[in-house]
């Protein structure tokens, strides 16, 4: 089985140098990178191969979660690669809370390409040194995401909405 890979591409209407700055200056990252609807802060940011980017976020329920990313490649202004995962408060790598089979680490690759007057970002996520079970878990999430359910997601959404309104 080939490694399952998640890819997302987006065009941004800003020159590449500015987009690169938004990804590599902690004070700018703090303004967009945190999880939606909750507080996030950057605890460490060392932009060089082997350097760590550690963050703390708070869930809506008020629980603290920590992330640790380790840079592998820093090639301004075109490429950023890091190893992505959860951590404990001390910065030690831990598994995803509540899902032991979610891959321990994901290799994140971000490509910055000039695209007219703007910038095209292509980001990919793939499990790193994952076990067969972890890869299967990730592949299963991807397959479910890519509409492997046929057209029934809408019905499922209605069903779930009905249940939660009881």
């Amino acid at each position, binding site marked *: 089985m080939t490694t399952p890979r*998640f890819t*997302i591409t*987006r065009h*941004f*209407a*800003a020159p590449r140098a*500015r*987009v690169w700055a*938004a990804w590599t200056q902690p004070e*700018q990252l703090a*303004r*967009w*990178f945190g*999880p*939606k609807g909750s507080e996030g802060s950057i605890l460490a940011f060392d932009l060089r191969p082997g350097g760590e980017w550690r963050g703390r976020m708070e869930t809506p329920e008020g629980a603290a979660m920590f992330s640790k990313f380790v840079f592998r490649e820093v090639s301004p202004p075109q490429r950023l690669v890091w190893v992505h995962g959860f951590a404990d408060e001390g910065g030690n790598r831990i598994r995803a809370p*509540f*899902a*032991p*089979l*979610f891959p321990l680490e994901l290799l994140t690759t971000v490509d910055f390409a000039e695209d007219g007057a703007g910038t095209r*970002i292509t*980001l990919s996520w793939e499990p790193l040194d994952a076990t067969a*079970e972890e890869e*299967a*878990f990730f*592949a*299963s*999430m991807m*397959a*479910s*995401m890519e509409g*492997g*359910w*046929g*057209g*029934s997601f809408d*019905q*499922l959404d209605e*069903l*779930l909405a009905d*249940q*939660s309104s009881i």
Partner: protein
Amino acid sequence: MESQLDRQFAALADPIRRAILARLAQGAATVGELARPFGISQPAISRHLKVLEAAGLIEAARAAQARPRRLKAEALGEARAWIDGLATYWSDRFDRLDALLGEQEGPPA
């Protein structure tokens, strides 16, 4: 240690099992009814149903003799939340990055 969520994703890894869930999202169905459109044997369908039941994604009605299977939509909701979390992890962040870059744009010189 395997969690219930792990079992759910293992169950979801198979395209036939996803198709069975999609079918059950439209209403309960018996083994015979499920076997027909997939063109596989009833024992094969039963094996898939067993995996889905162990993951807590479906249940069998006791009352009727044919024991129609029903989707446990609330259980699927947890797996769905994880899938949505993965799908929106970057798109949400990209939306906010887009807004930030727009702010910095400033008036044209």
